């Protein structure tokens, strides 16, 4: 059992068209892109300006049923030009919830799925201007799953999510220096160019024997 390429193409086209119709004048562009791996399925890539992102997210959730926020990626482009210093990529999924009613025994066949039942991948790209305080509006209240993903993106990449409640470091130690976000490109990894990425807050440095050595 599988979702066929035809079903996938129909669903992707529907979604992309719907987004383009709804947000035609606001700079939001939805494309259909084909994966070049495995079975060559297609997905919807949306490029959105940050100020419309919350509206788009709510609309996507309630109108086309995108119920699953799976991944948020922040990227730092120090040499990306004035308009693209940072990029935030959201990977969203539309995933059908079926047969959760107790004592029913619906047999579920993927090939017969139509319309909003067909799972679709979405990729939302938001480019941010090249400055020191990149920020996007939060979608924490739209998808619960975005909560910890946003925390992680702030912790590692340093992208502020405006309006995010209860932001704290999830992966780095709580006593990391303010403004230390390791995935920003000005931090070089150890032994490549610099001895240390930053002044060691806890004092666990390298071994004395290795000091001053660049591998």
């Amino acid at each position, binding site marked *: 059992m599988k979702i066929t390429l035809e079903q996938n193409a129909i669903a992707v086209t529907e979604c992309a068209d719907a987004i383009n119709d709804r947000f035609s004048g606001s700079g939001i562009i939805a494309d259909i892109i084909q994966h070049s791996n495995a079975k060559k399925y297609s997905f919807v890539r949306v490029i959105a300006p940050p100020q419309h992102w919350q509206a788009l997210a709510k609309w996507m959730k309630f109108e086309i049923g995108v119920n699953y926020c799976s991944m948020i990626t922040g990227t730092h482009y120090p040499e990306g030009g004035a308009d693209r210093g940072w990029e935030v990529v959201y990977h969203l999924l539309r995933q059908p919830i079926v047969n959760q009613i107790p004592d029913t025994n619906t047999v579920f066949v993927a090939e017969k799925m139509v319309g909003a039942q067909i799972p679709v991948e979405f990729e939302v790209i938001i480019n941010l201007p090249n400055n020191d305080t990149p920020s996007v509006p939060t979608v924490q209240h739209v998808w619960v799953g975005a909560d910890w993903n946003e925390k992680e993106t702030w912790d590692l990449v340093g992208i502020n999510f405006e309006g995010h409640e209860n932001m704290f470091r999830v*992966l*780095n*130690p*709580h006593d990391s220096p303010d403004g230390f976000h*390791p995935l920003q490109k000005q*931090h070089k*990894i*150890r*032994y*490549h160019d610099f001895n240390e*990425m*930053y002044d060691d*807050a*806890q004092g*666990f440095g*390298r*071994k004395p024997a*290795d000091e001053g050595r660049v591998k």
Partner: protein
Amino acid sequence: MADPGENFAAFNSRALVEMVGGVTDEALKVTRIKQFLSVLAGRFFNWAGRKSLFTLHLGIKCCAIEMAAAATPRFDGDRFGVLFRSSPRQSDVLLVNGPISKKFADKIVRLWEQMPEPKYCIAMGECAISGGPYFQSYNILEGVDTVIPVDVYIPGCPPRPEALIDGFGLLREKIIRIGGAPSSGRDSEKPIIVGDE
């Protein structure tokens, strides 16, 4: 420390008073009593200590799975008295089986300090030895020996359970030499590396 030259007939109360009585420092007194005991019962306690190595049930990363595999039917570490206890108070061996991040560094020191002497530390796997594949990482220490003293190194990524069992064997070999010496006084002792001829 059990010295083969010590006279085993020296067990009487006067000897105990001589060894222990003059010392006022509580910790030193405890150490002296322990020294006396280990001289007294030397071989027997040494045998008991090396045959019954309770390991702290601490799973950090990949090697934790091999640690678990070493306790299960095919490898069966129980044959050698290697049991896993969850409380550091009841364990003898701290088996560090993964990278030590900055967040975990003070926790593992605390675990080590909670364990009663005599205690031993085994660094299992590359991450615990030197940071392993993550030696360049911003969050990983370069080996657990930056924070606690290590007795046996078991290289591998991860080492096979056989290597772990061999590591325990080499640790027992070492215990024959050092006995119940406190971990802080073992700095001169060279650490053992499994597979290093």
